[in-house]
């Protein structure tokens, strides 16, 4: 009966020890934040920061009204942008499919040698942003649509490859076994046992990536890789803010339409 007195009168969620630990964690986070903040703002010119509302008002007043006369000039770059995204996605898919089959544990021909190579390709493609790919490719193959398409394609390999190889690893093995039980060759197992199972995932992933690529391709022009971003860069450089507004509205519209298309198609597939 005397043990009861050890317990606190009040109910608490955690023991004192775990509470102390949590508080230490939070204090450490705050300290880290303050330290990072000081490091980051060491070279900040605060005059520019306090001046920002005035600058914002200035830019805002120059941005409106958007220049509607500029729209016809934007149609060709917009078409280019859509082409960069679509052809880039096609290129990415073509390169990603073999990589995915090499990376999936159940279809790879050699788990010790080819699988790590495929995984490395996926990781390398994913860790570098499309804009950086474009920056490199513009330096190598020159400014233009091709650099944008190749950048989008290279960036897409990682994304499509990763999601596709995960889909391949999650297939129903009984179907593969059934197909192989009737004496199918390796290629026939692939074609009749595995491919039908991953087809919906494949289309859904490709269209999802296409949607992302539309977004990304709108800005690739900032580094010279063609499309509507090129016009954005030109308008920014000449401080033609009303044209910038027009371009931004157009980009926003394109992104919304592509998102709508992608969600419609994906819902129809799954």
């Amino acid at each position, binding site marked *: 009966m005397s043990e009861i007195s050890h317990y606190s009168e009040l109910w608490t969620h955690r023991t004192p020890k775990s509470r102390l630990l949590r508080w230490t964690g939070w204090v450490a986070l705050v300290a880290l*934040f303050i330290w990072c903040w000081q490091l*980051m703002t060491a*070279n900040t010119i605060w005059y520019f920061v306090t001046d920002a509302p005035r600058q914002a008002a200035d830019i805002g007043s120059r941005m409106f009204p958007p220049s509607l006369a500029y729209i016809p000039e934007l149609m060709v770059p917009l078409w280019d942008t859509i082409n960069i995204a679509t052809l880039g996605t096609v290129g990415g898919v073509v390169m990603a499919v073999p990589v995915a089959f090499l990376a999936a544990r159940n279809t790879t021909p050699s788990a010790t040698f080819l699988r790590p190579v495929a995984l490395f390709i996926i990781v390398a493609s994913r*860790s570098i942003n499309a804009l*950086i790919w474009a*920056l490199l490719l513009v330096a*190598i*193959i020159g400014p233009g649509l091709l650099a944008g398409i190749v950048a989008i394609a290279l960036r897409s390999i990682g994304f499509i490859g990763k999601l596709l190889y995960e889909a391949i690893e999650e297939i129903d093995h009984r179907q593969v076994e059934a197909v192989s039980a009737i004496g199918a060759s390796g290629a026939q197992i692939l074609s009749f046992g595995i491919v039908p199972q991953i087809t919906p995932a494949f289309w859904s992933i490709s269209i999802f990536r296409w949607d992302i690529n539309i977004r990304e391709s709108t800005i690739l022009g*900032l580094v010279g890789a063609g499309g509507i971003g090129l016009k954005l860069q030109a308008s920014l450089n000449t401080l033609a803010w009303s044209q910038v507004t027009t371009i931004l509205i157009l980009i926003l519209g394109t992104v919304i339409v592509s998102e709508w298309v992608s969600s419609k198609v994906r819902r129809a597939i799954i």
Partner: protein
Amino acid sequence: MTAEATNYPSTWRRPPQVFTTRTTRYALYGGIVLYLILASLSIDVDWQRVYIGLERGQRFVMGFLQPDFTSRWNEIVRGLTESLTMTLTSTVVGVLISVPIGIGAARNLVPAPVYYVCRSIIAVSRALQEIIIAIFLVAMFGFGPFAGFLTLSFATIGFLAKLLADDIEEIDARQAEAIRSTGASWFQLVNYAVQPQVMPRLIGLSLYRLDINFRESSVIGIVGAGGIGATLNTAIDRYEYDDAGAILLIISGFVLIAEYGSSTIRKYLQ
């Protein structure tokens, strides 16, 4: 009956999976081919330039294989410090702002006007790309990591507040009902019924966003918002591919560490 059985085809053809009627299928194939032809026509490739660029590409690959970490080490360290500090501060600030907005965007907690205001803040933040926000914020706040910090904080709100709001809308309503029936106020309801249910996911999402913010911080430097992207841009502009190779390897390394670190912690938390 037996006579009919003999009429079955002796070969089996795989039934079409998505488009069952032949005409729609052929129309679709025709459309795709037509589009690919039209799209390919819009690419204007200067093969002379590509040929010249190949030599550069070779130099770039050589630079990648023999990265030069030493000659611009100070600038790399400065860029990386900016990127890392920017990542942490913007994630912390972004999370702090997105929690109230996320709560405000949950239909089951707030009245309709608050819901619509918060959802539109989220929509604006999600619609614009980081790099476009960065362009504007650099124009307002001047070059440097402070503009980058603001960009990433703003982008974090759209991502985190949306996912948090969706999560709050899916909580177990019976727990909220139980707390409410004890006569709890709205703040007590949020603290005792909602917070315990969404906290693990909120921490997981914050860590995921930390990872995304680092990736983005390496890109927004291209438009002047500080960080390692600025260093990379300088290196490529100066045709110093061995430096660029070193920077890209560092970025990839950090992205990998961030991705595996954040996914491991998230697995441990859930």
